[in-house]
């Protein structure tokens, strides 16, 4: 349990740093966020189907699908102000 918490914190921690490094090179927060999400969708979809639980996707109840879909969309929308905040923050 502690391991998962640490992984979550360590996975989220470098995210703004990586985004900021990208924004230093190309000052495009909206496109940067989109590129990141597309990359994460490709990587995760590959992992998901290679790891084998593909049959769960077929059995996903509609209600859960709506909740997870909405959660994903809200998370994605939240990435845009996050990238924009990094963009407007003063240089180091």
């Amino acid at each position, binding site marked *: 349990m502690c391991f998962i918490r640490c992984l979550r914190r360590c996975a989220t921690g470098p995210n703004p740093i990586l985004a*900021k490094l990208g924004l230093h090179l190309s000052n*495009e927060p909206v496109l940067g966020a*989109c590129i990141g999400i597309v990359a994460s969708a490709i990587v995760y*979809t590959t992992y998901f189907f290679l790891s084998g639980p593909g049959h769960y996707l077929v059995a996903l109840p509609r209600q859960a699908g709506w909740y997870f879909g909405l959660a994903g969309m809200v998370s*994605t929308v939240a990435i845009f102000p996050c990238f924009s905040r990094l963009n407007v923050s003063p240089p180091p």
Partner: protein
Amino acid sequence: MLYGEAFALTAALLWGVVPILVRKGLPHANVSVGVLDGLFASLPLLVLVFTFYPRSVIHAVAPQAALWFVLAGISGPCLGRLFNYIGVARLGPVKSTPLVNTAPLFTTVFAVLFLGEHITLKILSGILRIVAGAVVLTGQQRG
């Protein structure tokens, strides 16, 4: 300056809703499917952005910058989201969210190491308060 803070607060507000939605969906499906569903649900939004954004990606974003954005995407929306959903599934949104909110501590360490940013006393004080808040909330829930 308030402009940047408004963006940060908007992101925090939106992320605050996510654990509740995840918890609502979890009794009916597992975490892996939930993450995939969320990522797929976001794709129409991305198509809209790529279509209607005034500048094309190829011209606006340098390849090196794209690489950093890809890594940011893998660390945040992919790994971060997966572990966040697992945390919500096992601990519940009330217990997992304060722990997730200790992320500024890690971000600050990485910012100092990789961006060479300087920590002021004000920033350090803010981070310590966030972490202390998370510790207090987690301790209270255990007790």
